[in-house]
């Protein structure tokens, strides 16, 4: 079938099968109300249909729950889905990160054991990488994994594990050799129902409890759950972080202009401009930087499609976090005293959300590689500056 025929087929199938009630709700799926949305009957139906069709992970082989399609066909599905305001109900940590990693590094048994459950969104995964003592220096992780002959014994603590309290499984980096740093790390799949695991949600300054601490206390893990070679986990992790970084830049879509909000909260002058000239100047400056940022995302995407160098992700992330953090501060400045509320009916829901968004935005320059680490990467990879 040529691509044009496939497009027509995809279009017709999607129109018939995507529940109209879910139109344009995609953005919510990754937000706080994800659970509510996912529990709806329409959502369940849509997920089941996509699972049966294998289109949640269209390029995966049918034996892994996919549809065995080409990259071009997968792209067509995405485009047609976007055209009707639809979304992929299967998209998860599993499809975006663990799946591609297992396909590259897992053995056939591991693929068959896990990929179909990811493809049907029935097994939720969390990522056990960070540790309290490690931070930006991921490779200094200490969670111990000892070979007990018939199983691995895991002891230690992970932190910043997204959704660990909801997850069924965890893909984790563990230390199998204490004498080497990067060279002593292995990549292990751990069933979160194993005895000895405890996941505790962390309360963030924004009130979010999305992240957890995970404690491993004499956790037994079957020998077959190690992916790749013993002590070969670091290169798997680096590859997986690439999947994370490229998916990061995907989700950065356009934002609402702040001008109307400012006219409402700050007022307008005789010429129709936002009344506070100092605030207005800084808003314009920030909005222009954002416009240039969006043009940069488009340009990088275009260049990557044409095989250009793609070493700009660290640069993009720092520009993005700087611009969005500044924007969040501007929102609070616009809202004034109304932007300082935490709870109660004397603040509107939007106002309360803005306070939390400000606080949440501070994480943007920390997670997924801190501002400082991204600058180091740019200096070394993009600019070729030497190590000390």
């Amino acid at each position, binding site marked *: 079938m040529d691509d044009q025929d496939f497009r027509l087929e995809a279009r017709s199938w999607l129109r018939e099968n995507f529940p109209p009630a879910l139109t344009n709700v995609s953005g919510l799926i990754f937000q706080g109300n994800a659970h509510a949305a996912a529990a709806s009957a329409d959502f369940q139906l849509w997920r089941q249909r996509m699972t049966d069709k294998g289109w949640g992970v269209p390029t995966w082989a049918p034996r892994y729950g996919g549809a065995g399609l080409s990259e071009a066909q997968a792209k067509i599905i995405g485009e047609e889905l976007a055209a009707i305001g639809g979304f992929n109900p299967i998209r998860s940590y599993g499809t975006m990160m663990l799946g591609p990693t297992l396909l590259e590094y897992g053995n056939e048994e591991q693929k068959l054991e896990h990929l179909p459950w990811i493809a049907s969104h029935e097994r939720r995964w969390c990522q056990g990488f960070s540790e309290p003592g490690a931070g930006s220096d991921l490779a200094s992780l200490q969670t111990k994994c000892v070979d007990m002959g018939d199983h691995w014994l895991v002891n230690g603590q992970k932190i910043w594990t997204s959704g660990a309290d909801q997850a069924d499984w965890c893909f984790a980096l563990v230390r199998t050799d204490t004498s080497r740093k990067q060279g002593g790390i292995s990549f292990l799949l751990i069933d979160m129902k194993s005895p000895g695991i405890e996941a505790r949600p962390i309360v963030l300054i924004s009130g979010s409890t999305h992240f957890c601490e995970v404690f491993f206390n004499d956790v037994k893990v079957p020998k077959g759950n190690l992916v790749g070679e013993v002590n070969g986990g670091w290169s798997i992790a680096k590859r997986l972080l690439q999947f994370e970084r490229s998916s990061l830049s995907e989700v950065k879509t356009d934002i609402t202009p702040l001008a109307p909000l400012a006219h409402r909260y700050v007022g307008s002058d005789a010429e129709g401009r936002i009344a506070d000239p100092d605030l207005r100047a800084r808003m314009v400056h920030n909005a222009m930087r954002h416009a240039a940022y969006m043009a940069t995302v488009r340009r990088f995407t275009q260049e990557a499609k044409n095989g250009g160098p793609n070493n700009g992700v660290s640069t993009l992330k720092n520009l993005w976090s700087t611009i969005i953090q500044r924007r969040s501060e501007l929102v609070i400045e616009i809202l004034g005293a109304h932007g300082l509320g935490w709870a109660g009916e004397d*603040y509107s829901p939007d106002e309360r959300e803005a306070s939390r968004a400000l606080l949440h935005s501070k994480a943007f320059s*920390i997670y997924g590689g801190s501002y400082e680490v991204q600058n180091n990467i740019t200096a070394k990879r993009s600019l070729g500056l030497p190590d000390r």
Partner: protein
Amino acid sequence: MAVLNEEQAMLKDMAVEWVRDRMPISVVRGLYDHGGGGKPGDGVGFDRDTYAEMAAMGWTGIVVPETFGGADFGYLSLGLIVEELGRTLAPSPLLSSAFVAASALRLGGSAAQQERLLPGIAAGSLIGTLAVDEGAHHAPARITLAAARSGAGWRLDGMKRPVQDGMGADLFIVAARTAGAPGDTHGITLFLVPADSAGLDRRRLDQIDARCPALLTFEAVALDEDAVLGMVDEGYPLLEAILDRARIGVAAELLGLATQAFDTTLDYLKTRVQFGQIIGSFQALQHRASEMFGELQLTRSAVEAALDALDAGDANVAQLASLAKAIAGETAHLISNQMVQLHGGIGMTHEHDAGLYLKRARVAEQCYGGASFHRERWGRLNGY
């Protein structure tokens, strides 16, 4: 640090010690629940007993004349204490009452009003606060709360929000409109309004800093003629003079906040290890710390110059107040942001103190006009 005389140096030492013992950061943490916001309930955002301890040390009477039970030690002295309290984000109405309300009575009160109210403020038994803002933005000339003559007295209708420490205050100094239109400086009159006046209602505002400023509603609140503070219709210059003291006071709090946020972060830079190095040895962080240190120097100088100007009776208090408030707000934002950033993930958790500094900085920055308001004001005062 300003050069202190012996009394001031003693006062400061006392404040350092007392704050460490009685108002550590855990006190403000006690206002929070475990979800990152203020505890629900009917707390007023501060504790009367600790305030009584401050009063016992004489802090509540520092700018009150001796005739009314105060010490008349001057604003620099009071500023030193506010700064120390700012270091631990100590929740207390000292600024609202002993700094702002005391100044209001001192500047604008009749002999009878001073005699009636200043001793209570000095003793800490009466807590006063200023009620000026009515909405999102500080705009003292745009006041709309209406005060109309009614028989031999006045009748007030309207609302005020947010009123600092308003849930625990006994007395409100209320800026009302008696003539003119919003935006006119003419037609503004100040009133002394007891918190238990009939028709006056107050509600807690739940803010990110777990303080509880009040939302006041006035419905036919009846006041006697002697409730007027200063002149009828011409209260704006008095209001500005009171506000300038409030601004300088908040700037002193922000100075303390920023200084402690910096000190805590610097300690972390000296101990945290990443990539086999103490992170404070990384040059990019060293330079960032040096630049923050520079901003702190500018802030301290601006705040101390403004406090000095109050004590010296300088004519340029307005400029210095706007300078101090604007720069203190900017510096507190910069440093509280970097406090989170340099602590990394742990700084994002409610369990760590960085978020408390961040939240209080945002609120204090907006009190009595934010940096943008004060840059505009400073610019106008200087012919820009």
